[in-house]
């Protein structure tokens, strides 16, 4: 395997995430109870997604300034993995919310349906789905690369209002909304206990590296496939 040191790091950090994440001490909280351990899995998916979308948009900008087809392959592969991680984050969030919001807090279904964090995240993921639809609708490679690079920048910018800003303005059941001490609950030092941070930060790095690893595989396969185009 080439350049394997960071892949080994990813494996070690993920093993630590599972062992430490299940066995180490966590704060005893109401409503969340033992499910606070989902922080090492559900929240990490979104963190890794944001980082990979960031990398993707960097390659899109690089494509627009250099016009090298290689950068387009990088941008679309990173966006693909990030969207997948976003879907995993959404799916795990649904399970978590159905226990903490519906069962424990007795929230009505209409409250869940107008939950801004869910709507925002759904919109953000759909915007990225449209990115792939857009890519698929071109037959000309240069045009596809250029238009989707511009669209990728728009999609990345849309992430911030839909996921981060609006749910915090209008109030939400999700942690981090007004009323629950605000800010990003995973990064706020008042909200997140030091025992959680011991596992949480390594977990974010581990999951992100795994996402990058899978993306590099996709990129390498695509580079092999498009070799005649790249020369």
């Amino acid at each position, binding site marked *: *395997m080439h350049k394997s040191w960071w892949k080994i790091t990813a494996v070690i950090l993920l093993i630590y995430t599972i062992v430490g994440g*299940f*066995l180490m001490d966590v704060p005893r909280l109401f409503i969340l109870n*033992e499910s606070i351990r989902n922080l090492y899995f559900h929240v990490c998916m979104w963190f890794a997604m944001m980082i990979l979308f960031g990398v993707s948009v960097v390659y899109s900008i690089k494509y627009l300034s250099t016009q090298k087809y290689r950068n387009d392959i990088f941008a679309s592969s990173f966006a693909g993995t990030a969207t997948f991680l976003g879907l995993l984050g959404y799916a795990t969030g649904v399970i978590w919310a159905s226990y903490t919001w519906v069962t424990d807090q007795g929230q009505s279904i209409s409250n869940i349906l107008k939950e801004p964090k869910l709507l925002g995240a759904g919109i953000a993921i759909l915007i990225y789905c449209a990115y792939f639809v857009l890519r698929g609708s071109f037959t000309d490679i240069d045009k596809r690369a250029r238009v989707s690079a511009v669209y990728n920048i728009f999609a990345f910018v849309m992430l911030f209002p839909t996921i981060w800003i609006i749910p915090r303005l209008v109030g939400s059941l999700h942690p981090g909304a007004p009323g629950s001490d605000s800010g990003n609950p995973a990064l706020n030092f008042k909200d997140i206990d030091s025992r959680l941070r011991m596992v949480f930060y390594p977990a974010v790095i581990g999951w992100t590296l*795994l996402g990058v*690893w899978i993306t590099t*595989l996709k990129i390498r396969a695509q580079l*092999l496939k498009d070799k005649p185009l790249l020369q």
Partner: protein
Amino acid sequence: MRNSLKKIALLFTVIVAIAQLALAQTNNPEMADVMRSNGKIYVVVAVCLVILLGLIAYVIRIDRRLSKMEQQNKD
């Protein structure tokens, strides 16, 4: 006299027990302590580790195969 003392003592213990129960309910959110004390949590950790390692082994295999294809493609 002795009887009433006994009754008072009994009442007192009951009140203390109820107070403790209430205290336990307000200060101690329910956690999966049983799972931890009887060691079943290690089963969960083992299962998750097997899944994780299996997935990683799969990724490594694809990585190796790609490396081989890249080698072949070079010449």
